[in-house]
Structures are given as structure tokens and as C-alpha cells.
């Protein structure tokens, strides 16, 4: 019985302190009071985890393999790309769109690419075009590659010697385990950025990246790159680039433009591995007299 007595004492000592008196003005219930049980205590036996913890090196290897697998699963890709140049809002003036180009892009391995400009708009077009009332099409040039090096440049096998890596977090989102891995360049004389990537351990692909430019890559023109966010999206089971948002600061203030520049590069309306009509990649020869 002494054990029971001790347990009772312990329970009493562990019981919560009496509730403070209700504050003035608080409504006091006049009906029955429902007690809140907060003295229950449960214990589960310790479970010794014998499985080896996945090392950072192993995670990096899996990310490299995951990225390679992601790319190898893509045969042809079509998407709508939007490039937008904006002066960000300041205390004196709101954000302002300066240029926007929208294009439909077709890529087919191994090396075919075609982009069709759908819209190009400039706030201040060149004088001749403004006079004619029509803006020139500005072609956006794309690489035929689907590797998306902008996302995985620091996680390619050959980049391992150029960066330091560390795990900064593990998060469970839904039924996905997400690793956050920070990377920073080893070199003190180069201009590689550091950053953080979010890796979905289901496919071991990078789903998001934030870059940190501790040094301006072009100090003569750019004071710094304040923020870069790169996001991917899953389309038909493939992780592909969704958008890249960049905020830059210029070293000199451009009249009527300012020092700040935002760039957005968004990709949507994906069609993946659905086949692309070979005519898309054929040279665009104009019939006689039709130009």
C-alpha cells in the first residue's frame, strides 16, 4: 500500500493549481461545470531504432539520382512561359510592370526546341514600334535540355566539391517527408550562390529552392540579389519548374525606373510526354509573297 500512497501524493502534487479567479467582467457560468481531466499519464516503452540513420552523403547521392531519374523520364515537354519585369513597390510609388513576354515552348529530346512568342508588351517600346502601333516580338531563347540546372546546379555529382551541405530541417507535410538542405559555396573568389533546397524524399527531387547571393555576381551593375525563389510543381507525376522570382538591386538608380528590379519567370500549362508534332520544329519558311 505505501506505493499507492506515494502515487496518490504524487498525483496530488502534480495536480494543477487552482484556477485563478475570473477576471472582472468575465462571464461566470451558472450551470453545471465540466471538469477537465489533465492528470492522466501514460507511458510507452522506448523503441530502439536499429536502422542506420541516412547520412547527408547518402541523401545527396539520392538527390543526384532522383534529379537524373526525373530528367530521364521526360521525353517531350510543352509549356507556357511568362517573363515579367517589374519595378517593385517603394514608399513613393507602387509596383509597376515594365515588360511582359509570354511564349509557348516546345522541347523534345535530344536537342529540339522551339518557342512561339504569344505576347510581348513593353511599357516604353522603342519609338519606331510605338509609332507603328505594333510591338516587335521578343524571342525568349530556351535550351533544349530538361535538366533544369537552375534548380539542381549545386546537387549535381560534379558540384559536390564546390559546396558545403548541411541538413537544416525535416518536415512532414501531408504524407511527404521533406528535407531542408542548406548549401554554401566553398570558394571565396567565385560568385556561386548558397541557399536552401526542399527535397521531397518520396522521389528525392528538389521541389523548392531559395538562393542566397552573399556576393553580387556583377558588382559593377548589381548591388545585390536580394531574394531568389525557385519552385517546382508536380504535373502528371513529373516535377517541373513552376516559377522563379528574383529581386535585384542595381548599383545606380536609372531615371524613371529606380534601383530595384523584380523578375518573374513562370511556367504553366504543361503537356508532358504527350508527343509533339514534328512540324512544330520545322523551319518557318514563308510562302512566296506571304511575308
Amino acid at each position, binding site marked *: 500500500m505505501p506505493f499507492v500512497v506515494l502515487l496518490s501524493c504524487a498525483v496530488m502534487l502534480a495536480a494543477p493549481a487552482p484556477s485563478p479567479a475570473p477576471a472582472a467582467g468575465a462571464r461566470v457560468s451558472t450551470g453545471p461545470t465540466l471538469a477537465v481531466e489533465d492528470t492522466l499519464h501514460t507511458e510507452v516503452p522506448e523503441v530502439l531504432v536499429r536502422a542506420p540513420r541516412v547520412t547527408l552523403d547518402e541523401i545527396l547521392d539520392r538527390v543526384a539520382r532522383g534529379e537524373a531519374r526525373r530528367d530521364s523520364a521526360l521525353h517531350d515537354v510543352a509549356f507556357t512561359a511568362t517573363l515579367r519585369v517589374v519595378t517593385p513597390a517603394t514608399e513613393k510609388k507602387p509596383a509597376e*510592370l515594365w515588360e511582359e513576354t509570354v511564349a509557348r515552348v516546345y522541347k523534345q529530346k535530344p536537342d529540339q526546341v522551339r518557342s512561339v512568342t504569344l*505576347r510581348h508588351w513593353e511599357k516604353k517600346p522603342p519609338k519606331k514600334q510605338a509609332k507603328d502601333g505594333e*510591338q516587335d516580338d521578343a524571342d525568349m531563347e530556351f535550351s533544349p535540355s530538361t535538366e533544369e540546372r537552375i534548380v539542381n546546379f549545386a546537387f549535381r555529382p560534379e558540384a559536390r566539391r564546390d559546396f558545403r551541405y548541411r541538413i537544416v530541417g525535416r518536415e512532414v507535410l501531408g504524407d511527404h517527408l521533406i528535407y531542408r538542405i542548406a548549401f554554401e559555396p566553398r570558394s*571565396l573568389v567565385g560568385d556561386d550562390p548558397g541557399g536552401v533546397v526542399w527535397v521531397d524524399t518520396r522521389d528525392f527531387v528538389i521541389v523548392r529552392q531559395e538562393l542566397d547571393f552573399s556576393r553580387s555576381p556583377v558588382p559593377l551593375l548589381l548591388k545585390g540579389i536580394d531574394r531568389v525563389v525557385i519552385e517546382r510543381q508536380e504535373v502528371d507525376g513529373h516535377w517541373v519548374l513552376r516559377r522563379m522570382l528574383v529581386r535585384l538591386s542595381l548599383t545606380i538608380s536609372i531615371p524613371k525606373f529606380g534601383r530595384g528590379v523584380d523578375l518573374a519567370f513562370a511556367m504553366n500549362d504543361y503537356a508532358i510526354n504527350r508527343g509533339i508534332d514534328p512540324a512544330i520544329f520545322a*523551319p518557318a519558311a514563308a510562302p512566296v509573297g506571304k511575308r
Partner: protein
Amino acid sequence: MSARLVVPTRLAVVIAAIVVAGGARADETPAPAPAPADTALHRYFGLTAQPADTAGLDSTLAARLERPWRSGRGPRRVGLAPSYTFDRANGSTVSGRAIVSDRDAHVMLTGDGAYATGPREWLGGGELSWWRRRSGTITRLELSGGWRTGTIDRDFPDPQLAMVRAFVNGSDRQHYLRREGFRVRASARRSDLFAAFAYEDWFESPLTVTSYWNLLKRPLVVPYNIPAASGRMRGFSTELGARLPRLPVRAGLDFDLASRPLGGDFDYGRLRLSLAGEFPILGFLSLLPQMRYGLLEGDAVPQAAFYLGGPRSLRSLYTNSRAGTGLAIARLDVVQGGDLLALLHLPHPAMLPLQAGAFVASGAVWGADPFHVHSTLRGEWPARDAWLSEAGVSLLYRPGIPDDDGYFRIDHAWRLGPGPPSIGWTVSYSRMFDLVPGF
């Protein structure tokens, strides 16, 4: 701002899309679609992060796929560029360059013509290049030729700053030769590997000094030009460069072969080995060791010799002040990371992040000397007394353009041990790893 923009311009775009199944016109302000859920990212980027308005895009795409010749600027580009150069052998050279490229065909054709006012000669040439990028490898095939001016030191040419020096105060110390002929070169480049193979056929001839003037009317510091051996160089060259796996080290191996059996006038083999790396320590200092070894076997013509001295070689010696058939040089640079002026709490413009550095170096040339001053016995390694050593300090500025790894440097070097007195301060522009081939 966006609310004011959205309503009228969206309406305009929709109406325009209905009326004209074409692209947007100048008066159609693209209207952002309604803002998505308010997240921290969207609050930060605001208008930038909003999705584009898609009204009319489908019909525009259909129209442009049907009549592709009416959209875009097409894959072909044409460019023209005038230029002006100056050196003491050619004097003022006025030139023009034309470029025609076809993005889809991966072909570029360049042609240039120039008139050198010193020797009163027409120069020029052209280059046809074809390239292809596949699986991260860029393959390139180039055919180039013409009548051109080259530098005697084929390892460390410095055309831009040499021209400024020659033009401003006549302090250019490079030596020049005429090269007439052609070269076919195939190369492949990956992020960590570079390989090139070329066949060359050049008639090389000496040049003399024809222009003695400069802006400050100073006497030329080098009033002569080392005469190149006149004759045809016909042979092969190979370049290999690699970044070693798992190590921050890059290596280079170059070999030139000029051969009489191929119909040339010279017979030599010219080998260069180079190694460089970066090893950060303490989080704010980088050690950058570099070494280069070169050996010339066969005809010791001046245009195949190795030259010592200058910002990209031994900084305490004047450019090209010593030469030989063998070269060995090793240098250790220590460079501070980050912004020196910010570290010292000195106010400065953001465009001027300076870095401090220090260096020690040793180098030697040996064998037949085109200057006929320091000729020593040929061999594979220099004698002990051929070595010159130095130590110095540097102030570095990386502008980021035109080369992402190019630095403007102000160096001051002191002689260590016996040898000619140091030249003191030098101003130069070079890559940080300037003893290894860049790729």
C-alpha cells in the same frame, strides 16, 4: 495600383483577343490575373508573383503555328561591329566585323576586315563555327583563317590592357608577329572537362615597329619587336583541361606539334602542364596554389618559346622580359573573402567590393633565349641559379563583366633573393587562376 490597372486593361485585352486573333498590340497592357491566395511570398513579390493573363493566348498560338513566319524574329541574327585597336607594330588598326548566326542550324559565320595604318596592310579573315549541345556537352567545330596579328608569347596574351598601354603612354611590352593561314579545331566542353584538337597551317613572319607615337608623347619603353622566325608552321595542337573529382583542383595539359614531314618549315613539340586549386581556410581566406611547367623540344623559334614576366607570370618582372625553351613557375596567392572596405568599416559605393591578397612566387626559364641574353643549357629542369622569387600584396576588384571570373588587380611585388630589382606596382586584368587554361 494593380486594381487600377486590372479592370480597363483586362477588358481591352479580351476585346482585342476577340477582334484580332493575333498577338498583343502596344496599347494592350497585359493585365495580371486575380491575385492568388495571400501568402508571405506573394506579399513580398506582389505584382511580380501574379500569374499572367491568359486571355487570347490560345488563339494567338493557333494563328502563329499556322503562319510561323509572321511571328518572332526568327532564328537568324545579323550583327555588325566596328572596332579600333592599336599596337606599335600595326599602329592604328580600324576594323569592321560582321556576324551571321542561325540558332536552329547552330551555325555562326563571322568575317572581319581591317586596315593597319602602320605597315599599310589590309588584314582580315573569317570563322565558320558549328556547335551542338547535348546532355550537358557542348561540341564545337571551327574553321578559321585569314591574315592576322598574333603575339609572340602564345601562352599569356593580354590584348586589351596592352592596347591601352600602347595607346596612352607607349608602355606595351608585348611582341607581335603576322600569321597567315587557317586552323580547323574540334572541341568538346562539359562543366568539368574540356578537350580540343586542331590542325593548323600558318605562315608566320616578323613584324617591325611602325608606330612610335602615343597619347602622352612618351618614348616607347620597348622600341623594338622581337622578330619571329619566318616560315610555315604546319601541325597539330591538343588541349585537355579537367576539374579533378572531389577535389577543388583543376589541371591542364596542352601539346603543340609543328612538323616538317607535314610540309612545314618548323619541327618542334611544345608541352605545357598546369595545376591550380582553391583551399579556403578559417572561413575568410582562400589559398590558391598554381603551377605551370612548359618544355619546347626541337626548333627554338621565338614564337614557340616560353616567356617569363608580367602580371600573369612573375609580377616582379616586366612582361616578356625573359624567355627560354623551358618554363617552370609556381605561385601561391592568399585572397581575403568578402568586402575589404566593409570589413574596415569604410564607407564605399556598393559597386566597389575590394578584396585584399598576398602572394609568393618562384619561376624560371631556361634554354635558348630569343633575346640572346640569358641563354642557358637546354634540359628538362632549370638550374638552381635560374630561379627568381618574389613576394607581394594585391588589391583585387571583380567587376563581374566582361568575364565572370576576371579581376582587376593592383599588385606590388618585392624580389626575394638574387635577381633584377622588382618593377614595383603593376595594374592588370586577369582571371584568378591565370596559370591554367580557362574552360
